[in-house]
């Protein structure tokens, strides 16, 4: 089995490309998507606002290629990246530890990777090897977060957006904001707006109960999705992050619903992929619309501040990736050790039988001989397999050598 990564992210493809791939993460499509993956091997789909990636564990490179053709059909070849084995593992660790994020250090991405992994597990699309890789990547991500300050000076995408909103609407105390969606990003935005002292905070969500729950946390007011346009006239900041496949806020509706509103500016932030606010809404003079790619510039500035922490994190990652190589080798090593033990035990058994026949030993003598041979075999195996359990180049060389030796032996037998 080989580990592959196929995907697009904020660096290779802009949001208009990424939103074309969002269909894969839809509830209705998941069954089809994962049954296709199961027919090839196993795989985890990571679909966030910044990336759409498939982590695959498939027997042949051809299977990965078929997955690429199936899931990225209309995407230009140059926008898609492909990685294999350690390179792909390294990428996964970088993603999980937020080193590959648009806003380096953001804590949300680890949760998103975990959710993607659990979803794949629900569909039984994670084999033990893929499972091990993901578990280890979670551990590395956690270690990076605890041993560096990468997340401490972190400013989330939501708070970057809210800070930008301040540059447009000014003081929040006499303003009204509407947060559409009740997911992780929306919750962060709502909390940030609340702590910044927004005058009135509205929460709208497709599932009204979730809107009520979030409104309770942030001391806001829940709203039905159908009521958005009725309230838009009074809203100064709109933050949208939902999984809707079509725009929730359109230019025509906004013009219609603004009515008697003064010419005060309105800030609209849409970090959904696909976008939930119509792109041409920014053509209206006093409406400022930003999507996830637009916030990239601000995110880059924050990144400069955390440069030394990023370097520390990179060191930890490299160090752990070396060990990771050993860990991914573990199942192979275990299987080999089992083979060696069986093989030597068999040899010892055969020799025992031969000696017993030649010397005409009775049952007690035969038992003593068997015990001795077994002990000898065990000692021999233990002394040799010790090398396989260590880290480093010797272990890799020993693994190759023993694999060749015992596969040869088994072929001959």
């Amino acid at each position, binding site marked *: 089995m080989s580990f592959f990564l196929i995907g697009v992210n904020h660096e290779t493809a802009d949001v208009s490309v990424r939103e074309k791939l969002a269909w894969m993460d839809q509830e209705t499509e998941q069954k089809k998507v994962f049954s296709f993956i199961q027919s090839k091997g196993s795989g985890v789909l990571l679909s966030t606002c910044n990336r759409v990636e498939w982590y695959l564990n498939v027997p042949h490179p051809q299977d990965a290629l078929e997955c690429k053709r199936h899931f990225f059909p209309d995407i230009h070849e140059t926008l898609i990246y492909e990685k294999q084995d350690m390179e792909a593992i390294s990428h996964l660790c970088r993603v999980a530890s937020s080193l590959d994020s648009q806003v380096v250090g953001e804590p949300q991405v680890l949760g998103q990777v975990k959710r993607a992994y659990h979803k794949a597990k629900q569909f039984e699309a994670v084999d033990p090897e893929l499972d091990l890789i993901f578990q280890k990547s979670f551990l590395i991500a956690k270690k990076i977060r605890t041993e560096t300050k990468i997340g401490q000076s972190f400013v989330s995408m939501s708070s970057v957006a809210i800070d930008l909103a301040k540059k447009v609407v000014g003081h929040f105390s006499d303003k009204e904001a509407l947060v559409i969606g009740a997911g992780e990003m929306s919750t962060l935005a709502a909390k940030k707006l609340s702590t910044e002292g927004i005058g009135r905070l509205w929460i709208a969500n497709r599932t009204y109960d979730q809107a009520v729950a979030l409104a309770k946390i942030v001391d806001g007011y829940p709203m039905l999705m159908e009521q958005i346009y009725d309230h838009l006239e009074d809203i100064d900041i709109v933050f949208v992050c939902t999984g809707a496949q079509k725009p929730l806020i359109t230019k025509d509706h906004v013009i219609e619903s603004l009515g008697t509103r003064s*010419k005060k500016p309105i800030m609209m932030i849409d970090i959904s992929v696909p976008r939930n606010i119509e792109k041409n809404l*920014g053509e209206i003079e006093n409406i400022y619309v930003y999507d996830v790619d637009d916030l990239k510039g601000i995110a880059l500035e924050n990144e400069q501040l955390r440069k030394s922490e990023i370097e520390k994190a990179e060191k930890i990652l490299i160090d752990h990736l070396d060990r990771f190589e050993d860990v991914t080798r573990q199942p192979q090593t275990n299987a080999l050790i089992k083979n060696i033990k069986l093989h030597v035990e068999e040899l010892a058994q055969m020799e025992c039988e031969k000696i017993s026949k030649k010397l005409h030993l009775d049952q007690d003598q035969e038992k003593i001989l068997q015990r001795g041979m077994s002990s000898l075999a065990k000692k021999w195996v233990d002394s040799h397999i010790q090398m396989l359990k260590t880290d480093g180049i010797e272990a890799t060389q020993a693994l190759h050598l023993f694999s060749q030796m015992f596969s040869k032996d088994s072929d001959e037998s």
Partner: protein
Amino acid sequence: MNINIHILLNIISLMLLTLSMSFSTLYVLQQRWLKTKQFTLIQRLPSLETSDLWAARLLVCGWIVLLSSTLIGIYIAHDMWDQSWHKNPKILMAMTTCFWYLVFIIMRAKFDYRGSKFSLINLLGYTSLLITFVYSIL
């Protein structure tokens, strides 16, 4: 009435209206940067709303001082030239500028003239003020 007060008020009004104009210009620039997503330039600037608000506040203050200065100027001119003061082009220009600014203030209050539209009108008013000021010096 002392002519020095008239001159002092004139200078103060010019300063206030220049500041108002600066905030309006800042608004137009900020708006352009925000629309074209050039965020690095706006990091240290006040918000759009603040720029707009201060442009309006300074305009009102500047107008009040300018009006006072113009009224004092009319009073002095009346003393100096008796009946013919209203024929003086300097006074006529100052009165026109005051009226022009009053129209902006009413438009802002009544028709909610904000943002780039307000900035443009402010620029026109300021041009008129500068012409008056330069003419009065000459």
